[in-house]
């Protein structure tokens, strides 16, 4: 009992001290940057909002699980979160053939898995073949490797991966934790065993230690780690001895626990709680998720949404600034394209996405839609309205959609809101039985547009084959050279916004709050946590 008391006191004291310090010199901003040089050792206690049901980064698809998995595995490459460029990690260099169907990686020497075996070409081949073999169990990976046909070991440190179709996106995908490399021994265990941490042998800066479902998960520093990504701030071992992920589903408990010193940091800070962590010794790290922003994707085969002018009017009737200012927080940005500003080859289309109710009214007037007695426009007996289907994956979605509903009512458009479970939403998305779909997708590569909008892929807007959009999407997928992909990627964004196949609204943003004890909690290019450079004082 006495030992127990001590630990409570120890946890409380630093924050008490920090609060005193902040009151003593209230004008001084006590941010993590002032804490002096990073020091090794200690445990970072970090709250996440949901249980990472499975721990194998190759299999998982939830943010909670990806935020853990990222620390356990290394990838062939890393992606610069500032520029989107692909940089060396386990691979020192690589070549791509002209058609982006063949990628040759030259591995660095000296890297080992936590079971002591080397990270060599045969191991990389085993790992990629293993991900392919997972099939649908590797939700993200199997998408990245859709056209993967196999690997060839050219020498112990050189491996070539082949694809049956141009796969420019693969280079970015090779930097994700979903394609992180596991040891050959891992594949002697079943996928279910790896999910539970059994045989989850990576070469990453941390190793799995223990997992209490729905309560906490601990990972520990990998001793002797010396093959970090070229993008990291320091080389050698991670600073932290351990990371203790607390699984805390209640947002209010996450906030209160951080404020009272029971946590060092928390993910998923709710917009209403953000102000409490601005100053007072706390810091916030934020980063918009790259990929497709939260948007209303129109099914152009349904009702009034078949009319392009109607879709364009809806786009003009949405006041994005008001959405981020009233329902979200200043950390969230209004969408300025269908892609978030953190996505490579994003192009700024803010002029086309400005709030313009007069323009919306003019479009609808010209199209023959007349305001009815209840304010909703009609044409030939048809009411101007549509339904939006969504799941509550993001807490504020309901409030955002209710605000958009009010905004669109002002231009005479009746938006009905339909909340479904995640399972039902996926079923509806697959069947195509929706007018508008409300969603976002995280991916730090513009190819996500092909995945979602190409008539040959997801085709969420139900477009006919052979539109100029398909041509643009195919063009950006054909080559791994960023400059060569640019015209296609930009044109695709332009076409989607111009034809209002989707109405972009805001950029989903990760908000992490840290106490004065935690430093360097940061994000990689896909806005997942990268904790190699994190430390505690």
């Amino acid at each position: 009992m006495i030992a127990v008391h001590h630990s409570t006191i120890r946890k409380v004291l630093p924050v008490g001290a920090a609060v005193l310090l902040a009151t003593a010199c209230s004008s001084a901003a006590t941010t993590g940057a002032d804490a002096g040089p990073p020091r090794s050792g200690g445990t970072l206690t970090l709250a996440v909002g949901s249980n990472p049901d499975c721990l194998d980064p190759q299999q998982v698809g939830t943010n909670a699980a990806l935020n853990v998995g990222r620390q356990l595995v290394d990838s062939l490459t890393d992606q610069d979160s500032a520029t989107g460029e692909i940089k060396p990690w386990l691979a020192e260099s690589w070549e791509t053939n002209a058609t982006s169907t063949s990628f040759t990686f030259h591995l660095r020497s000296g890297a080992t898995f936590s079971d002591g075996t080397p990270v060599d070409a045969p191991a990389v081949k085993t790992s990629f073949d293993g991900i392919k073999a997972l099939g649908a169990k590797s939700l993200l990976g199997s998408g990245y490797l859709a056209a993967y046909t196999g690997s060839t070991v050219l020498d112990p440190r050189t491996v070539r991966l082949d694809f049956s179709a141009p796969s420019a996106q693969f280079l970015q995908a090779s930097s994700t934790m979903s394609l992180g490399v596991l040891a050959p021994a891992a594949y002697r265990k079943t996928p279910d065993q790896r999910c539970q941490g059994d045989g989850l042998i990576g070469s990453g800066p941390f190793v799995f230690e223990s997992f209490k479902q729905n309560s906490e998960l601990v990972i520990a520093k990998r001793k002797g780690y010396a093959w970090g990504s070229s993008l990291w701030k320091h080389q050698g071992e991670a600073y932290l001895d351990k990371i203790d992920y607390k699984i805390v589903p209640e947002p209010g408990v996450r906030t209160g626990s951080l404020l009272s010193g029971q946590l060092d940091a928390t993910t998923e800070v709710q917009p209403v709680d953000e102000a409490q962590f601005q100053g007072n010794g706390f810091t916030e790290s934020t980063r918009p998720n790259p990929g497709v922003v939260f948007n209303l994707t129109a099914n152009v085969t349904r009702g009034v949404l078949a009319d392009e002018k109607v879709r364009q009017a809806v786009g003009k009737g949405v006041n994005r600034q008001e959405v981020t200012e009233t329902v979200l927080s200043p950390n969230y940005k209004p969408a300025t394209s269908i892609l978030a500003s953190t996505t490579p080859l994003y192009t700024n289309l803010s002029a086309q996405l400005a709030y313009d109710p007069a323009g919306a009214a003019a479009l609808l007037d010209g199209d023959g839609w007349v305001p009815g007695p209840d304010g909703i426009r009609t044409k030939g007996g048809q009411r101007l309205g549509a339904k939006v289907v969504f799941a509550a994956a993001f807490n504020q979605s309901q409030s955002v959609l209710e605000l958009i509903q009010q905004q669109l009512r002002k231009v005479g458009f009746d938006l009905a809101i339909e909340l479904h479970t995640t399972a039902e939403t996926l079923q509806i998305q697959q069947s195509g039985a929706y007018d508008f779909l409300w969603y976002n997708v995280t991916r730090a590569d513009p190819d996500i547009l092909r995945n979602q909008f190409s008539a040959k892929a997801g085709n969420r807007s139900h477009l006919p084959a052979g539109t100029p959009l398909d041509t643009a999407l195919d063009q950006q997928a054909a080559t791994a050279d960023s400059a060569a992909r640019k015209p296609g990627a930009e044109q695709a964004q332009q076409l989607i916004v111009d034809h209002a196949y989707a109405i972009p609204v805001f950029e989903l943003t990760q908000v992490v709050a840290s106490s004065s004890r935690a430093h360097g909690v940061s994000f990689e290019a896909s806005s997942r946590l990268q904790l190699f450079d994190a430390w505690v004082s």
Partner: protein
Amino acid sequence: MRNHVIRRILQALVVLWAAFTLSFVILYLLPGDAVLAKLGGGEGAQTVTREQLQQAREAYGLNDPWPVQYGKRLLAALHGDFGTSIATGDSAAHQVLSALPPTLAVTGLGLALAVLFGGGVALLGTYTRFRWLNNLLLSLPSLGTALPVFWVGLVLIQIFSFRLRVLPALGNHGVQSLVLPAITLALPTGAVIGQVLAKSLRTQLAEPYIEIVMAKGASRARVHFGHALRNAAMPALTLVGVVSGQLLAGSVVTETVFSREGIGRVTASAVSLQDIPVVQAVIVLAAFFFVTINLLVDLLYPLLDPRTRNREAARG
């Protein structure tokens, strides 16, 4: 007596089978399935293809017609195998059994506190001669039953963890992490026990036999605690059997609020993910507990009340 026990055990087996079957039917009839729920909840929901969904359903045996799925599951369950969780890859039985001890610790302590609190309030409330104290104590249970568990938990955390910083708000570490969740569970449960016990105590105290006992010169305390309580305890004891089930249900809320490992959280997430193997393992386990506790309560009656003992003897 022996026949009675055998009959009760047979009844219990039927209850277990019914719980197993009903949970399968309900989850099977819900729109969507475990694969949709698993894939729909993550980042991959937007990029998954129809082929991937089909492949995953095939892998988890969800494409089989329902009688085949049900039959396979029942047969395996008879051998103690509830299958593998679709969400976590862990064996459903292991997942449920490993989540059991932390839940039992909280609910056990919660039940003890509930009996203490409910019993104490009812006894004092009916014993005291101060009218104001009497009224105050006896109004506590109705207040207790009106408070939502969720709210009580958050208020306790706010006061004792965030303000006073004497108890942890989250986790499973040590005895001190049990205190707030157990109190949260005990308040509404204790209130129900208190209500029932107070009512039956008052009924008993108005019975003619009390006057006889008093006329024989027994002290007030002896009348109250010795005679009235013994007879009044029967309905409250029956209730303990019922509230044990309520405590398990309440643990869904307390474990979420206090971020604890346990059956409640396992159940909540398995139901929302339509993870049939885990839900069935939980339900069969819960039914087992429910049946066992009620069986025990049933067998305790004769010890407390000679009338039921004689009736059983006459029948058995």
